[in-house]
């Protein structure tokens, strides 16, 4: 426990680079940033499937009939934390202008912000504002402060996911004074209006204290989507009505190594971990329902959640050796080669050896737990068929001599390397010579991105974490214009697919849209553009003293204000 009051020590397997919301591109940054800064919206703590809730905004947005104008009202009386950057040092009130400024920042090259893709081409006048020199003193036509607490946004076309973008760390509201006062060092400070304020931050941990000036908000189980049926065991009921945040001090330890993280939990240095997959056998007594081995059960609580995303390996479709080819014959042979590789891939074994068998293997790119997932889909693309693969190769004239040498890229890590070795072993089974599959290892994800964007890598191992709970975020992964360096790392290009995407994107969720998405999914499968996929099951474990429902996806940072430490009462 902390010096004065209750402390909860969270852990993550990576560290944020910066606490500037404009840089919050990683799950690690996001988790921290939303506790230091306010976003207009957030996700409800307990609702599954995930549902939005107003945060800094007073209510859900009002959309115009055509979906092009969105009006949002901000809670009055919310203040930034005190900071020398403000005249007099006292934090001033948060206004609509701050929200506008915070979005504008993403379009200012000097910020090097990473969130512009959320709003590019979407908000009237924003791109023009940037082209004109990103002068904060000129207005953006599509971002209007109707009054100090009312914001109106004009969209260029309907954007049903817009509210979701306002629940991202990127959309954290920052005060211009502090940004300008601290300049580049702003990322190491934090001057926000979130539930916590920054005490210290380095590559090992961030320490935050309760923000004493946090707007008065209380824990309302119903508003957070509490489901007594599944969630009564969490012991959250007594927390009803308590003021947020519930703890006085929040610490987040960044521990990259699984072993160290586990040791730290067992040593009582941290209160929570995401259990490493290698550990499942030691930790879990049963998988369904989830329970801990008796030794641990006294001390720890456990919960599982499917990740909002999946892992897959793309083929570089722009590479004529294995992807699209102008020569129709070669194009067909390449497709056969890709399909053979996919058939040779043993998802079963991958799941068992790396995900303890509790990951969900599914065909294509729409994982289970997403409403558009089709449980009835044909599963041949994720079932191993070594004979079929060999036959396919033989039929298409692929011999050990003619098979191309594949480069397989991955960012440096033990698990990735083992997965590579496993992959190469799978391929050996279908007759792919060992020395025709070469690993290319990259120390950083950014470097890896560069490499596959430049076509160095033919097999691109990836994972996708959804930015918001809407399948549009999934199908865009194979949309032609998003080709590498964009999210379409396969550089998949299919005009038919692109047309369907453009048709479906502006549609609000509906059975019609679901149908379109499923068709797109099947196209990716039929073209053998990717070896996909598996949705990991995450297992969380925490000290029983902490009463909470942890999450790593959409409420990954937001839930921390609801965490309660029993020891605070003792």
């Amino acid at each position, binding site marked *: 426990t902390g010096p004065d009051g209750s402390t909860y020590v969270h852990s993550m397997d990576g560290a944020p680079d*910066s606490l500037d919301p404009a840089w919050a591109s990683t799950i690690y940054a996001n988790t921290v940033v939303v506790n230091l800064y306010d976003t207009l919206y957030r996700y409800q703590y307990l609702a599954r499937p995930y549902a939005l809730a107003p945060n800094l905004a007073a209510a859900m947005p009002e959309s115009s009939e055509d979906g092009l104008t969105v009006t949002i009202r901000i809670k009055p009386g919310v203040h930034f934390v005190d900071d020398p950057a403000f005249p007099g040092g006292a934090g001033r009130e948060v206004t609509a202008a701050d929200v506008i400024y915070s979005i504008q920042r993403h379009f200012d090259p000097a910020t090097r912000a*990473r969130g512009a893709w959320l709003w*590019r081409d979407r908000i009237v006048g924003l791109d023009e504002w940037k082209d004109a020199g990103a002068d904060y003193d000129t207005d953006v036509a599509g971002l209007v402060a109707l009054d100090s607490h009312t914001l109106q946004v004009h969209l260029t076309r309907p954007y049903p996911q817009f509210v979701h973008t306002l629940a991202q760390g990127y959309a954290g509201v920052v005060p211009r004074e502090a940004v300008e006062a601290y300049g*580049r060092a702003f990322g190491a400070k934090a001057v926000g209006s979130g539930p916590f304020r920054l005490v210290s931050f380095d590559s090992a941990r961030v320490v935050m204290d309760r923000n004493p000036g946090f707007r008065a908000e209380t824990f309302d189980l119903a508003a957070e989507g509490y489901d007594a049926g599944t969630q009564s065991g969490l012991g959250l009921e007594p927390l009803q009505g308590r003021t947020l945040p519930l703890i006085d001090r929040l610490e987040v330890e960044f521990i990259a*190594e699984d072993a160290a993280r586990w040791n*730290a939990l067992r*040593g009582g240095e941290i209160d929570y971990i995401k259990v490493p997959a290698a550990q499942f056998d030691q930790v879990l007594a049963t998988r369904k329902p989830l329970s801990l081995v008796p030794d641990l059960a006294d001390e720890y609580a456990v919960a599982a959640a499917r990740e909002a995303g999946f892992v897959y390996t793309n083929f570089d479709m722009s590479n004529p050796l294995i992807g699209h080819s102008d020569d129709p014959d070669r194009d067909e042979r390449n497709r056969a080669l890709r399909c053979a590789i996919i058939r040779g891939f043993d998802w079963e074994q991958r799941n068992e050896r790396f995900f303890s068998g509790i990951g969900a293997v599914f065909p294509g790119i729409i994982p289970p737990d997403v409403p558009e997932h089709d449980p009835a889909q044909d599963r041949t693309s994720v079932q191993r068929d070594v004979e079929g693969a060999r036959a396919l190769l033989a039929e298409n004239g692929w011999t050990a001599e003619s098979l191309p040498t594949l480069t397989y890229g991955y960012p440096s890590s033990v698990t990735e390397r083992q997965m590579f070795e496993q992959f190469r072993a799978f391929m050996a089974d279908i007759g792919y010579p060992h020395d025709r599959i070469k690993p290319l290892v990259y120390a950083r994800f950014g470097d890896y*991105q560069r490499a596959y964007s430049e076509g160095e890598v033919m097999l691109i191992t990836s994972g996708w974490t959804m930015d918001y709970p809407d399948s549009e975020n999934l199908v865009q992964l194979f949309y032609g214009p998003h080709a590498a360096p*964009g*999210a379409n790392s396969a550089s998949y290009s299919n005009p038919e697919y692109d047309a369907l995407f453009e048709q479906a994107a502006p549609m609000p969720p509906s059975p019609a849209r679901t149908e379109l998405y499923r068709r797109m999914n099947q196209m990716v499968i039929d073209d053998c553009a990717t070896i996909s996929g598996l949705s990991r099951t995450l297992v969380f474990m925490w000290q029983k003293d902490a009463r909470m429902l942890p999450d790593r996806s959409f409420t990954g940072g937001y839930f921390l204000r609801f965490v309660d430490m029993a020891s605070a009462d003792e």
Partner: protein
Amino acid sequence: MSTARYLARAALQGAALLLGVTLVSFVLMVHFAPDRTWGLLGKNPTAEQVAEVRHELGYDRPLASRYVDFLGELVTLDFGHSDTTGERVTDMLSRTVPVTLALVIPGFILGNVLGIILGLAAAWKRGRWLDRWVMAGSVAGMSLSFLVIIIALQILLCTPWGLDLFPARGWRVDGLGSYLWYVTVPTLALVTVTLGYNARFYRSVAAEELDRNHIRTARAYGASPATILFVHVLRNGAIAILTRVLFSIPLVVVSGSLLLETYFGIPGVGRVTFDAITSGDQPVLKAVVSLTAVAFVLLQACADACYRWADPRVARS
């Protein structure tokens, strides 16, 4: 050599070294460094955005002009802000360097002091059982990889598989107690990995000194073992000892602490630098590189001064 001449010479050599180190490191760590552009871009970037970021990072400028700028930064000691975190590089270093120092100093000192004690004792008892045990132990110690030592110590001392006495990782120091709590296992690791080498080195220094004629003179005039070891041997071996101690400082502090920091999750300068290399964080790299070069040059000057103190033959010639 006159003092002025000596100083001029030291300064010139220092400057030449500094220039060399910065140039080599600049070419290697900056010119060939990983391209940061992609790490700085959000999802689905446009070509224009890519160009923008590259310009922001200065990648579109010629190498020579970037090197000259770097030298300017070195002279003013202003390295700007980290490309990754935006933190001021100077702040970053003043945050991490003390941690690294606090981490390695106990092990470094202990490793050397124990090494000297064991080395002197072994040399004094040359060929006897104590010597044989020390030598056998040091051969075994030298055959252990730092990595193995760290992992083994962590299993033994910090996990439920072993004694589970110390924290497995972290660095939350707010007083002597917590400092000892966190520093013990890294210190043990550092001592284990250096002791073999140190004991052997100091033994050979002491053995060589003990063979010198003036030791025979001292014994012929009734000097006690303590006098011989601590007055004659140590004073005469001082240059060898100082050289080793001084020149292992940069290695231990930057290279040696890297594994410890990685493994024990300690926010020190070794890890920060390694990360800066892998991510191509040039401002940080430039600062670390120039600081180590400056430190190296200072150490060399310091070593020279120590030689002058330790050996009157150098001092008065």
